[in-house]
């Protein structure tokens, strides 16, 4: 059974009550810091405490503790910084019944206050949907009653619809016509829960938009954000279709270089995490450098080093204690597939930078 690492803001996203099975307290402890730019505030006492808590499964946890997860604060902070905060794009006019706008007369202070509130609302909108591993299929048979074979012609699904049970713990069983009583599979579970506890935006059967050809049409119209939003509404985060659709979308974005579509949306973090795990951050790096987002580029490379500390570029960067542009150059030289292209883009950027500097001065 996969353990679900769930944090509180994640619980607020999904309206269905999902009880946290196991909330693991994870403190990031590392034997050596591999990101010199961010010194970890890790007093030795905390380290000892963590070791004492996780003394039982030390070996499994130590290998996992080295690898940062999606929900770590550092990772999240990097991803949030990279996502950006373009208010116009976040609060784009939604397709809805229009009403005439209202006008208010404000002083400068009031205007700033209103902008601050808008930024807070934007941050709530930018909460990232969770990235989980794929769930293992359920193949549990509860009873085999050969005496019932051939009596019925259809399967019967029995669902426990008590209100105060978390959906993950509900009992949903299926009696086959052959007499076996088995636990319902994940798809059947999702369908039954949607029938008895409908969630807004979710359909009982997956909509036709998730078919291959329809997805391709959506991609050709640059509507990746809509696809991902529909996917988050329809599927559970650890279901196969959810992961498949997300990965397909990310691949398509990478193929066409349309990274800017997801910037300032809540899916950017997931995309960056996927690329870093797959070691395909070249396209994203080039796009960031071309848009003069050097800080984002450096933080992306740092995240890469965090996730793959044993890689060549991580080692070299640690040796050279590289910072900023040099970090990117180190990465470009060592592990990048399109290293030359990255260097060329960096060069163009630096020339433009120098010329603008000289023009300004």
């Amino acid at each position, binding site marked *: 059974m996969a353990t679900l690492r769930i944090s509180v803001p994640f619980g607020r996203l999904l309206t269905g009550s999902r009880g946290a099975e196991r909330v693991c307290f994870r403190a990031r402890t590392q034997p050596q810091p591999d990101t010199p730019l961010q010194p970890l505030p890790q007093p030795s006492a905390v380290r000892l405490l963590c070791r004492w808590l996780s003394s039982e499964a030390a070996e499994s946890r130590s290998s996992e503790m080295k690898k940062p997860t999606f929900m770590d604060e550092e990772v999240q902070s990097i991803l949030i910084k990279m996502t950006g905060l373009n*208010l*116009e794009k*976040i*609060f*784009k*006019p*939604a397709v*809805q019944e*229009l*009403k*005439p*706008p*209202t*006008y*208010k*007369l*404000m*002083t*400068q*202070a*009031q*205007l700033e206050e*209103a*902008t601050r*509130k*808008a930024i807070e*609302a934007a941050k709530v909108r930018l909460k990232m949907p969770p990235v989980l591993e794929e769930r293992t299929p359920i193949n549990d048979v509860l009873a085999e009653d050969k005496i019932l074979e051939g009596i019925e012609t259809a399967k019967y699904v029995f669902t426990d619809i008590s209100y105060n049970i978390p959906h993950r713990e509900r009992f949903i069983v299926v009696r086959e016509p052959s007499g076996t009583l088995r636990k319902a599979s994940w798809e059947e579970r999702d369908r039954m829960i949607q029938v008895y506890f409908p969630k807004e935006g979710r359909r009982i059967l997956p909509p036709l938009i998730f078919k291959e050809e329809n997805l391709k049409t959506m991609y050709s119209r640059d509507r990746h954000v809509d696809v991902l939003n529909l996917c988050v509404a329809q599927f559970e985060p650890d279901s196969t279709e959810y992961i498949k659709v997300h990965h397909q979308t990310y691949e398509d974005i990478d193929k066409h270089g349309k990274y800017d579509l997801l910037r300032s949306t809540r899916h950017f973090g997931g995309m960056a995490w996927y690329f870093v795990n797959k070691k395909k951050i070249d396209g994203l790096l080039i796009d960031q450098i071309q848009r003069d987002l050097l800080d984002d580029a450096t933080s992306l490379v740092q995240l890469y080093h965090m996730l793959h500390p044993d890689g060549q570029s991580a080692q070299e960067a640690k040796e050279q204690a590289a910072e900023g542009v040099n970090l990117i150059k180190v990465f470009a030289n060592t592990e990048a597939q399109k290293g030359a292209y990255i260097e060329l883009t960096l060069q163009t950027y630096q020339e433009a930078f120098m010329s603008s500097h000289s023009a300004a001065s």
Partner: protein
Amino acid sequence: MGYGVVLGSAPPAEGWGPRFDEEPLGRRRTGCPGGRRRGSRFSMAAAVRAAGRLPALCGVWTGHFWCRQLSLNTFPTASVLALKTTFSNGPLSLQGTRDSRHFTSLSHALQTQCCISPPTSRSGQQYRPYSFFTKLTADELWKGALAETGAGARKGRGKRSKKKRRKDLNRGQVIGEGRYGFLWPGLNAPLMRNGAVQTIAQRSKEEQEQVAADMLQQREEWDRKRRMKVKRERGWSGNTWGGLSLGPPDPGPNGETYEDFDTRILEVRNVFNMTAKEGRKRSVRVLVAVGNGQGAAGFAIGKATERVDAFRKAKNKAIHYLHYIERYEDHTIFHDISLRYKRTHIKMKKQPRGYGLHCHRAIITICRLIGIKDMYAKVSGSVNMLNLTRGLFHGLSRQETHQQLADKKGLHVVEFREECGPLPILVASPRGALRKDPEPEEEVPDIRLDWEEVKAAQGMKRSIWSGLKRAST
């Protein structure tokens, strides 16, 4: 059959020859107002004048047998002309029996040169080469037939169904074409062929029948086209002139054109005035609005005896009374306006894009001319068109733009849209000083409520017409 000998009433086409309508042939102006009695005298003066116009034709005929026989000065030329008219009908008939002494020599010539057949009576139809109708011009005849002036036409007594239309009887007439189908080179056949001058020929019977049938069909087609009623464009409804377009105003004296302006009629009214001489005198009063769709618009009224003149006067006057109306984002007004102009109450509301113009039909027309695309307006009280227009322009000109509001109050004007969530959009900042103290905002706003709006908001309105959806404008 023939169109008789009515002398030419239309401007001659190429090769028709001189006009005959100004000078009546052979009519002695007796001066008696009553009936006209015609003698068979030809006035030489008239004839000589007519003869002056002959050269065109005779020039064509030089070298041909006519000139061998005739000489202009020695011959009463009127008879030549009379002969010509008979050509259009066919038989080179002898005028002979009645006015024999004038025509004998000519008829001799004709007999020697051409084949002449005596006039055959055509089934029942009368054919008189010289009659009452040949003695008058087409204008005079039509004047008598149409009877446009007269007691019946005055004071609005004329019935619309009794109005006759004048028809040009010489349309399609080719001098040379006749019943017997002779081909006169230079007239209805080419003069030269391969460098040689052709002779007079005659069409075969079938050809002539064909030609006659063609002519008949052509005339019927002309008649049909004339009778076809041109459908007038429909304005606000079937018979009104409201909402119809008059095109752009006429160019000004200094060459300025107003091609981008469109004019629309708002009201056409027949007004009457009592005069001393005629009594009730009718006049047409037209209210017209012009606009170019970019914010410049104006209106004016024009009055004249005829409708067309009134349209023209109003159009050209309106272009001199233009207002410029500020619009928010080129599609709606800046804020809600409720005004009372004399006894007309207008309440206008700002609407978002795509709402359309949900207003009185006159206000829709005017807003289209101004360039406003989305607005709600309610007209209550009097719906007098002139006051409605004046009130509308009055209210729209006195709008306060966002920039003006910001300057007046010294604060930022910030827009909040439902579809954009909590995002504040800065629309205007004061150009002068920015105030530090905020605008006092009470919990209960100090505005005058409208009872109709309150009823609608509370659901107390029992009208069947509220909330009705019509075709979008």
